[in-house]
């Protein structure tokens, strides 16, 4: 190739043009990949929305509400919970949330604080 370049200088410019063309087409590929990740995120969001609308009890207006007028103590008794086969989040969890009291949940991250809230809110 070098020999060719030396023999005919115009070949050199052709080579640069070719190189730039290849680079530009790569750019298009990279932009394309970015768009695919966006698309994937959107699809996941769609899935979640469909999931909610299909599988959960719907509350359309006040008549669908269960008539709860007050919330008493909330008790978790012997709760076992896992997100998947291997990782058990709760193993015999006992917890009382006392009515009209200031109840605090503390613990290192991964300890299950948020999981308790999610269970409570039926998420």
């Amino acid at each position, binding site marked *: 190739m070098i020999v060719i370049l030396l023999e005919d200088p115009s070949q050199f410019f052709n080579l640069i043009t070719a190189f730039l063309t290849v680079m530009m087409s790569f750019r298009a590929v990279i932009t394309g990949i970015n768009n695919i990740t966006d698309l994937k995120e959107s699809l996941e969001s769609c899935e979640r929305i469909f999931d909610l609308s299909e599988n959960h009890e719907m509350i359309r207006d*006040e008549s669908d*509400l269960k008539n709860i007028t*007050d919330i008493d103590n909330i008790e978790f008794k012997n709760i076992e919970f896992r997100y998947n086969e291997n990782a058990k*989040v709760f193993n015999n969890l006992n917890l009382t949330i006392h009515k009209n*009291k200031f109840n605090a949940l503390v*613990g*290192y991250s991964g300890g299950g604080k948020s999981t308790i809230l999610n269970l409570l809110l039926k998420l």
Partner: protein
Amino acid sequence: MVGYVGQDSIVFDETIDENLQVGLFNRLENNQIETLMKKVNSSDFYPNENKLGLKGSNISGGQRQRLAIARALARNNCQPKLLILDEATAALDGKNEEEVQKILNEILESRNCTLIVVAHRLSTIKNADYINVLAEGSVKECGTHDELMKIEYGLYKSMLNA
């Protein structure tokens, strides 16, 4: 019934009034909105008739959290029975955190409803009636700050010293 404030609250590109009305069966009266917004020290961004921008970008993170607190307090005709605060100040910086915590403390002190607070900063839950320490899938310790501090080599004590 249940008011919830998370780490980073979702705010809609609507006016503040409309953001408070979201999901309520009985629309709030103007005076109720004023009372709520006063409760969260909102004089720096309320009254305001403008829309809040995409994801509430026209107001600051601290202001968004205060709006979220007001929204939580609006539940059940401004009488929520259960208030859940899930690290509500975790995403805020010093001054904002202080400001939001001050409002939360007032709410927490009143004990008007059942309060569940998840905290990463233990100083914020020192006055709790029941502190539940979670580890390894169960509640390891439960009690007031003073009670838990008495447990030698206790988890709570070690977390506080860490």
